[in-house]
């Protein structure tokens, strides 16, 4: 079936604006992860959902970042009052469960804050 889908693929916004990034995981995958990848760096963990609940949000950098997954499928990462330092590729990944199932990554959303 289809892989992890992320939309939009690119997003340009002005400093101070609000943005939403969407992730559509593989059907049946209960675990969903958000990562952020800055230029020249490896991905950094942001938040993990098991079903509808955020099981671990320890990677969110501050309270401007928030994510939801209301029906246990699609997730939205929301960033308020964007700053230039938020510019990065935001990656979403899903897996069958919390255990040793492999992660399947989407192609990411490239966010540019001007």
């Amino acid at each position, binding site marked *: 079936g289809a*892989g*992890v889908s992320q939309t939009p693929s690119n997003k340009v916004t002005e400093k101070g604006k609000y943005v939403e990034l969407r992730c559509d995981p593989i059907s049946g995958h209960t*675990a969903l*992860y958000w990562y952020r990848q800055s230029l*020249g*760096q*490896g*991905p*950094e*963990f942001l938040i*993990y959902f098991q079903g509808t609940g955020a099981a*671990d949000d320890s990677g969110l950098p501050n309270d401007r970042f928030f994510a939801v997954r209301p029906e246990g499928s699609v997730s939205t990462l929301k960033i308020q009052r964007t700053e230039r330092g938020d510019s990065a590729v935001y*990656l979403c*990944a899903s*897996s069958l469960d*919390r*255990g*040793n*199932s*492999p*992660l*399947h*990554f*989407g*192609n*990411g959303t490239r966010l540019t804050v001007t």
Partner: protein
Amino acid sequence: AQSVTQPDIHITVSEGASLELRCNYSYGATPYLFWYVQSPGQGLQLLLKYFSGDTLVQGIKGFEAEFKRSQSSFNLRKPSVHWSDAAEYFCAVAQISGNTGKLIFGQGTTLQVKP
């Protein structure tokens, strides 16, 4: 704190030559280790993983990696590189044993393949 170090930011090899990408980790317990590959504009793809058992693990696309606890290393190897292997490679360790989705990644190594 757990960490992953990939000492080589950029490596260039000739097509057909052998390849070794280095990875060192810092982790208190038995680590869950991974290698991912990322092609331009693409998501990360899992090459191989080590959880336990045989320290030499085989992956996709002809890659293998060897876990060496004494050296805290998990180096990736390929006997003969193909032009299509040019990409960015990331080593990662699971932050929590048993939850292999919460990963710490290294900075990555960019592989360039010369014809």
